[in-house]
């Protein structure tokens, strides 16, 4: 009787361990981060208006530096306000951040930037969410890492905290906050 019970216990322990391992592997996939290695996504050709200067902005704005961030934000978005401090910090450390102003009122967006300081080198105005559909934006805020060829390397959805930055992005830009 005894060895049989031991065997049963061993079976239970083994199945619990197996389940834990599978669950850990599956969850370590980090659902709010997407690496587009198998899903190749590039910045499409577009012409939009700059929120800051009023001039035209095209996909060329993404082709200057090696790595840059695209931050999707709006003045009506509460979580964007929470990550604003991190964005300012990054901008001060020399990270190029391009803003995509998603479904916003231009005037409200400009007031937001002048009262909270502007971390963006350029802000693309997207009042109808047209470019956002091309990029697969689900909601604000989202932060993408984009390389020199306009390829999206990382898609991060949600608030950008310093922990998340150091964990996900800092390796590419050698900047940690």
């Amino acid at each position, binding site marked *: 009787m005894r060895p049989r019970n031991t065997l049963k216990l061993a079976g239970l322990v083994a199945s619990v361990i197996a389940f834990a391992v599978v669950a850990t592997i599956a969850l370590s996939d980090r659902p709010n981060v997407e690496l587009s290695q198998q*899903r190749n996504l590039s910045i499409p050709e577009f012409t939009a208006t700059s929120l800051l200067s009023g001039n035209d902005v095209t996909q060329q704005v993404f082709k200057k530096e090696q790595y840059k961030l695209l931050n999707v934000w709006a003045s009506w978005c509460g979580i964007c306000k929470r990550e604003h401090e991190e964005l300012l910090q990054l901008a001060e450390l020399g990270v190029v951040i391009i803003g995509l102003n998603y479904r916003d009122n231009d005037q409200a967006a400009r007031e937001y930037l002048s009262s909270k300081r502007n971390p963006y080198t350029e802000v693309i105005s997207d009042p109808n969410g047209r470019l956002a559909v091309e990029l697969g934006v*689900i*909601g604000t805020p989202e932060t993408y890492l984009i390389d020199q060829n306009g390829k999206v390397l990382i898609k991060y959805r949600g608030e950008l905290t310093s922990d998340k930055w150091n964990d996900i992005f800092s390796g590419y830009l050698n900047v940690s906050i």
Partner: protein
Amino acid sequence: MFRFNYLFLMLVTFALFSSSLKSEEIVQNVDLFEFHSIELQQRATRLAKTLRCPQCQNQNLVESNAQAAKDLRLKVYTMVNEGHSDQEVKDYLVTRYGNIVLYKPPFNYSTAMLWILPALFLIFFVLYSIRMIRRD
């Protein structure tokens, strides 16, 4: 003379106003989308019903009135109307939004648990029941 000037001024104002209206970007209402044919419309609606709105809690692109769902519905309708196949539309959305937009995700490494686990549970319970019945 005064009357003529007044009329002229009104015409000029109207002309200016209407041109400024024209220069405003026309936002297309997805619910008024016009297809080339009724077949295309049926195909597009059927396709949109099999796609999940990524912003919503389990609603498809036709059911949901969230802005993101409307944007995507318009994109699906436009692509179908331009002659793209269902698979091309799906690929377009999966590239941008991920497998979350598909109600029936493909079988691969990251979705293996989702597909295999129910089958494993079924096998386990069948075996377990057989054993219990035999014991009695």
